[in-house]
């Protein structure tokens, strides 16, 4: 499935839930757009979390809420405040990385 970015008209590959299927297509502008769709205006703190998530993703480390809480970037409470309603799920979508999943 493909969607077109409203900002620069680039075409993005996304799955049925709006997660980028190619994490390398991500740019900070695209993140702003996805966040706005989710009703979130990105602050520097948001961006710091997104960068942490992307770094970990490219290292191949499975992400958990606990890991974000131990990152030194935000506490778990702050993480919930930044990305309400399932913080890891929402932040992963904005960070352009796959949705946290189980094996089934």
């Amino acid at each position: 499935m493909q969607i077109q970015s409203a900002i620069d008209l680039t075409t993005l590959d996304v799955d049925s839930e709006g997660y980028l299927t190619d994490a390398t297509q991500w740019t900070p502008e695209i993140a702003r757009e996805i966040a706005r769709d989710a009703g979130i205006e990105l602050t520097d703190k948001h961006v710091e979390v997104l960068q942490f998530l992307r770094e970990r993703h490219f290292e191949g480390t499975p992400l958990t809420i606990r890991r974000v809480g131990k990152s030194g970037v935000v506490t778990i409470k702050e993480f919930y405040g930044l990305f309400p309603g399932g913080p890891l799920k929402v932040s992963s979508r904005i960070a352009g990385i796959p949705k946290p999943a189980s094996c089934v």
Partner: protein
Amino acid sequence: MQTLLILGGGTAGTMAANKLRRELDPDAWSVTVIDKSETHLYQPGLLFVPFGVYEPERLTRPGRDVLDGGIELIVAEVAEVEPNKDRVLLADGRPVAYDVLIVATGTAPRPAETPGLDGPLWYRDAFDFYTLEGATALRDRLATWDGGRLVVFLAESVFKCPVAPLEFAFLADSFFEARGIRDRVEITYVTPLSGAFTKPKAGAFLGGLMDEKGIAVVPDFYAERVDAERKTLVAYDEREVPFDLLVAVPVNMGADLVGASGMGDADDLNYVPTDRHTLRSRDHDNVFVIGDATNLPTSKAGSVAHFEAEILTENVLHWIAGEPLAAEFDGHANCFIETGHGKAALIDFNYDTEPLPGDFPLPVLGPMRLLKETRTNHLGKLAFEWIYWHRLLSGKPLPVSTEMSMLGKRLDAAPA
């Protein structure tokens, strides 16, 4: 004489030790396993203990008995590894030197990581079933429990044997039905993920089972604490789930010795940064990692350790011979899912391919069916116990290829 040292005599460590003992020249290499326990535990059997299907005694054998004769077993606690000195320090201070080290120290539940879980409720109204102690205590509680709110609770999304809590919920449904009290039990499945099933094809096949069995799912629930007084799970977003009986999958962490040795990854879970294809430690050339101790983005499960053992054996031999590491691990995992009422499903997947429907290991002939509930799959799970003790641990070949095969899988299958 050179030394191959293996930390951990669980499923992964035992397979690696037996395979490498056969491959290495006995005059040039000694093989030593260090484990803190002298007992080897058949972990897949833990699921059956709470329901009285397996007796706890059935799950254990002396660790010595599952290791080849030419392997030395040291039963001791390891304090730390000194990877820059090529040696391990035991808790009593004794050093053990190595030429090649394999870390197979696994992962374990840590109930103390969730405030209130490991308190007055523990083993009274809150249990794990990933330890013999927990599974046995839960069996005794279930035998006399006359109903109420049973909550299966995942403290985190990365833990050992990811299908086990689903299986527990399915088997609990059958168990209470058999006891004639199913109508007096509410079963709720609480997960930090977006649902009990998150992979599209597996979700489509298995998702209906929760409804069918009347198991409620509470998704996106990340517990901050257990309120022991009110017997309630409290999430970071203030949502609450009350329970009468809690079956928890606590936060899982790797061994303390990994953290103490400075070999864990950047956070605090004590998993060793491992090359996802060669299985060598990312930080030390003569250290390899296998099983639940790795930080790899695949399931923590015995089947994964089994497929890794093949790759790890080849690469350890390459390293010893001074050759480049060649073997490549693909993240292959293969798991039965007990679905209750004498049936089971089966899944087969790797780093890149989600569980798909089809036949296993052979197209049409099967005899197993992927992502389908059948009696044959259940018999396969029961038969696995013998295979584990007699074939798998000794590292003998099984009729399953190390690399995941697309043979028999159906990509285009419409959800049933």
